[in-house]
């Protein structure tokens, strides 16, 4: 039970992240519980010593007792004042540490699967958002210190009850029970409200999506041209309000309970104060004790009061399980050893798609359907097909990023899954259509050496030249060390075409480093005419010695490939060289002639 409790897990995570910090936090918690009560007790005792000192004068022994007690109380009080700064430092350290630990675990969790399907699963994305605290106003990383602070408060309140129990056992116990009674339903409601909030995740995410479109620079141009601002914001407001409606009702209920609990507090506190008053009137109680007990009474509030910190804590704790669930759900099954198979130098002969079908989860139609295709080792194959024919999906299957729903892919006759998947993925150098624009330096963008790896400057220059990126890098203010994003100091934004060359250089660099398969998905879509012409002039050198797969709408590129496959309805309908396919007079020939006609020397089209 305790193990499953998010409170326990938060502290355990802190212990794992930094035992020293946990120890510091626990010391803080004890001090938080003890010192305020000690201040009250010593102050009470000081006041208790006043009448005797008045009678005997300050120079007397009674006077000394007073002064000693006063000194102790003063020092303790001064100590209690350092609580704030101590808490600030501890909070900063613990929160930063926990945030680092949690983010690291999240990244590790989502990076654990070799595929990428989980990153397209809304349930996973929801958990991810929640674990990051995106769903609430509170960062989950703050949970540890908020919890420690709360435990310190509870301890302080409980000790105050204990002190009061020293006067009348039932009074201390009674107040303790009263606060628990007040607290329980409040906490239940706070939890219910947070649960409601979590249930509303999907509608809330929808509302935030509109906000996101209005906020982000990426949609800014269309938002302006189409005047979408007010519409987006209105949708955000309406959906957010709708999603939060049950929560508003719960707060109303909560308020009613708080008001009711006020009666209980009045009764409990009335009894306590009256008992003290009666005892005092009967002189059954020394002055010091009376003062101590009186000032202890408000201190018991900390057992059961509902504070903003409680709400924050419950909210933060509600997302604790998300991280654990993500970690365990995404943990990949133990990898097959691969039988010691290595992908180095493969394919020796071919990569074969055998009756491969693929269907995206949650959809009801195959994107690829019974596809058969052979990619011959050391040769390049181009794939053409209408939009949505499944070309890009094919690439993710080849790279082991997704698994076919049916059929299999054979590497030199051996099923792909019998090779170590990570190694195979690295073996496929791919320029995706939506290639990554890293907000890092040009060098890091090409070498993908994200963590200070050494690069080979000669290879770097060579691949940049082949990708047509050499001059663009030269013109950057800091050359290879320029950050490729204007959002960073000294950074520069590149145009689409410039980025495409960087992406190509990246893939070529990987080939130089031993990747045996080169995949180019629309490698020239954003290049200008000269760059495109240069690209296809270099095509043969680019694909030399590797097994290439090229997807392109541009015949200038396609026709240079050794073989061309036409993809239609999820399967390959034509296969052959450019001339061969033209002679065959099928779909390919038709597509080509339509384009070619548009470059005919006269303008029949307009006459």
């Amino acid at each position: 039970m305790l193990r499953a409790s998010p409170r326990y897990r938060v502290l355990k995570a802190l212990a794992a992240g930094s035992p020293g910090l946990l120890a510091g936090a626990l010391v803080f918690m004890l001090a938080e519980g003890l010192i305020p009560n000690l201040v009250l007790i010593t102050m009470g005792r000081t006041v208790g010593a006043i009448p005797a000192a008045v009678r005997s004068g300050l120079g007397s022994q009674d006077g000394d007792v007073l002064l000693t007690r006063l000194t102790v109380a003063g020092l303790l009080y001064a100590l209690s004042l350092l609580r704030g700064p101590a808490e600030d430092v501890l909070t900063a350290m613990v929160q930063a540490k926990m945030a680092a630990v949690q983010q690291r675990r999240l990244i590790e969790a989502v990076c654990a699967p070799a595929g990428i399907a989980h990153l397209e699963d809304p349930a996973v994305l929801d958990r991810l958002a929640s674990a990051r605290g995106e769903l609430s106003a509170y960062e989950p990383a703050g949970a540890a210190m908020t919890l420690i602070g709360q435990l310190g408060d509870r301890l302080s309140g409980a000790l105050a009850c204990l002190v009061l129990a020293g006067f009348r056992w039932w009074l201390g116990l009674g107040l303790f029970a009263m606060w628990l009674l007040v607290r329980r339903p409040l906490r239940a409601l706070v939890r219910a409200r947070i649960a409601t909030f979590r249930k509303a995740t999907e509608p809330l995410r929808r509302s935030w999506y509109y906000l996101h479109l209005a906020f982000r620079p990426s949609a800014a141009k269309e938002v302006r041209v189409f005047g979408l601002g007010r519409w987006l914001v209105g949708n955000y407001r309406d959906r957010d309000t709708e999603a939060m409606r049950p929560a508003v009702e719960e707060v109303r209920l909560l308020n009613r309970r708080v008001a009711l609990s006020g009666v209980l507090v009045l009764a409990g506190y009335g009894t306590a104060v009256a008992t003290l008053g009666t005892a005092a009137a009967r002189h059954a109680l020394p002055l010091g004790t009376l003062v101590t007990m009186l000032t202890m009474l408000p201190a018991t509030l900390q057992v059961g009061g509902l504070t903003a910190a409680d709400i924050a804590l419950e909210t933060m704790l509600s997302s604790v399980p998300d991280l654990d669930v993500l970690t365990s759900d995404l943990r990949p099954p133990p990898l097959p050893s691969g039988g010691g198979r290595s992908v180095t130098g493969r394919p020796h002969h071919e990569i074969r798609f055998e009756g491969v079908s693929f269907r995206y989860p949650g959809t009801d139609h195959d994107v690829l359907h019974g596809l058969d295709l052979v990619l011959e080792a050391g040769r390049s194959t181009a794939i053409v097909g209408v939009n949505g024919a499944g070309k890009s999906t094919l690439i993710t299957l080849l790279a082991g990023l997704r698994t076919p729903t049916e059929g299999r892919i054979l590497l030199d006759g051996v099923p792909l899954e019998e090779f170590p998947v990570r190694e195979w993925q690295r073996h496929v150098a791919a320029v995706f259509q939506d290639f990554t624009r890293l907000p890092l330096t040009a060098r890091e963008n090409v070498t993908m050496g994200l963590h200070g790896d050494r690069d080979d400057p000669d290879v770097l220059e060579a691949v940049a030249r082949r990708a047509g990126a050499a001059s663009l890098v030269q013109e950057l203010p800091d050359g290879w060390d320029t950050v490729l994003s204007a959002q960073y100091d000294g950074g520069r934004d590149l145009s689409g075409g410039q980025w495409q060359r960087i992406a190509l250089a990246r893939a070529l660099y990987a080939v130089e480093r031993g990747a045996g398969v080169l995949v180019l998905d629309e490698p020239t879509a954003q290049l200008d005419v000269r760059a495109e012409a240069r690209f296809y002039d270099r095509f043969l050198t680019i694909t030399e010695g590797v097994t290439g797969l090229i997807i392109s709408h541009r015949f200038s590129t396609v026709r240079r490939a050794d073989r061309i496959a036409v993809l239609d309805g999820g399967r390959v309908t034509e296969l052959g060289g450019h001339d061969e396919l033209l002679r065959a007079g099928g779909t390919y020939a038709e597509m080509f002639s339509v384009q070619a006609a548009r470059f005919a020397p006269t303008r029949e089209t307009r006459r």
Partner: protein
Amino acid sequence: MKGIRPITAMIVTAWRAAPATLLWSFAAATLAAAASATFPLGFHYMVDGTLAHRSDEITVGVVIVTLLFSLAATLGTLSVTGNWTLTDRLNLFVSERIALLLSTAPRLEHFERQDLLSEIDQLRDDRRALASAPRQLLRAWQVVIRGSAIMVLLATVYPPVMLMPLFGLIPALADRRAARVQARTGDELTPVRRLIGDLFTLATTAGTAKELRTYGVTDALAARHASLTEDALRRGVRGAIRGAAWEALGWTGYAAAFVGVIIVLVLRAAHGHTSPGQVVMAVSLMRRAQSQVAGASDTAGSLATALRTARRLLWLEDYVARENRAPAPARVPDRLRAGIRLEGVGFRYPGEGEDVLHDLTVDLPAGATVAIVGENGAGKTTLAKLLTGMYRPSTGRILVDGADLAAASPARWRARTTAVFQDFVRPSLLAREAVGIGDLPRIEDEEAVGSALAAAGADDLVAGLPDGLATPLGRWFTGGEQLSGGQWQRIALARGLMRSDPLLTVLDEPTAALDPAAEAELFTRFAALSRSGHRAGGVTLLVSHRFSTVRTADLIIVLEGGRITEVGDHETLLAREGGYAQLFTLQARAYETG
């Protein structure tokens, strides 16, 4: 008083967002503060009543303590829940406001200039601090109430003791200093934190995660992220420690003063000048005063953030208002007669050292299709941005039927323009909405959406979706249909074709992701459409690398290094045998047979 405006703004914002909740929170907070500051008066009566054997005084004390304390405890809790609601409402309100400002500011400068963007990032990230501002202000108000009550009660004990709460200024000043130290650390860490956030997004987004895997750098990325986080952590903690040192210094000063005052009081009591009951009350009150100061300085940090955020919001309000200001917005014509004229137009991105466009002078005749060709970085997209009013030319003018575009209201001009950009949005909306937002008033008009889809050659695509126009698109939400790059582009095209009779249509590489057959088909249709449909004499501006498309334009402009080098139609330019002819031949090579 420049400090007052953000505070007023915060209160006004809260009042607009939730007037009833604000009033209730204010009342509860005031009462709770007053009650919690005055119940120690009961201690005074109880202790002195005991010493003087007066049971009526004890009874008065008992009643005061019980009532006031219960009231304080209950109202205190109620104001917590009240603040909760208030913060939620305000969060919605503030997010809405910021989003509206950002998305309705007429131009793009604030999204593309590093310094403005960094302000906006911070505003967006800290908007929750702004939402919590009224809560912090209420706390400050409670400090005032409690402070005054405490002062009055202390005055009854020994008037000089009233000075005690003033010593609270020592820690308060020290805390302000600490907050500044923290803020500076925060500012210094902004770029690192942004990079940390960017790396996190890279690792957790499907599109980029693909590449991290094929390059085998998931671990390297995690390590880079971790080391950046560690670095930010160390620097952040250093800042926190420096800040806390100041705080500790302040509190030590306060403690010294406090202990001094208690010594004075106890010594006075020992001499019989003050009663023990008064000492108890005074000590209890002063501790309350201290917790006030502590509470206030605990929230001082968040209030400072809130104030900074409020100031940023005001800055944004002013900025957008300034951007929107046009002396007397010129009218946008109903139809173009002459066309659009560029007159010596030059442009330089703010903060950059070089012009992107130099001295462009050209006529875009009404009703014409104008193609712009040029290499990457020649300034084609920038020109499209100028024409759609995203930026104003740095020099020269853009004239719409002779009237300067700079004088027209950007919103009104844009209501008569439409565009398909290279980096179009892939909205995770229903298919109908993803197209219909191209002309909001007709977003529900299935017929209009249908004909835009047909014009973009996307009718088959939508017909093939499981729920047709009602199919959710994109992977953002459960059940969304994932489209390919080319399919998305068709949706974007359909969106761009929603508006009827635009004065300007910008097509920036509209077919880069389409297959050739689709492109050919689309342009035949589009050419027919624009010839028959341009009742308003609209200009179509086409940016393309594909000469098969470009050649059909009425007018072709060749841009090189931000300058116009050639203008004319296909035949003319081909005959000139200049840059255009060269590029055309280069591309045509791909279609030579044999």
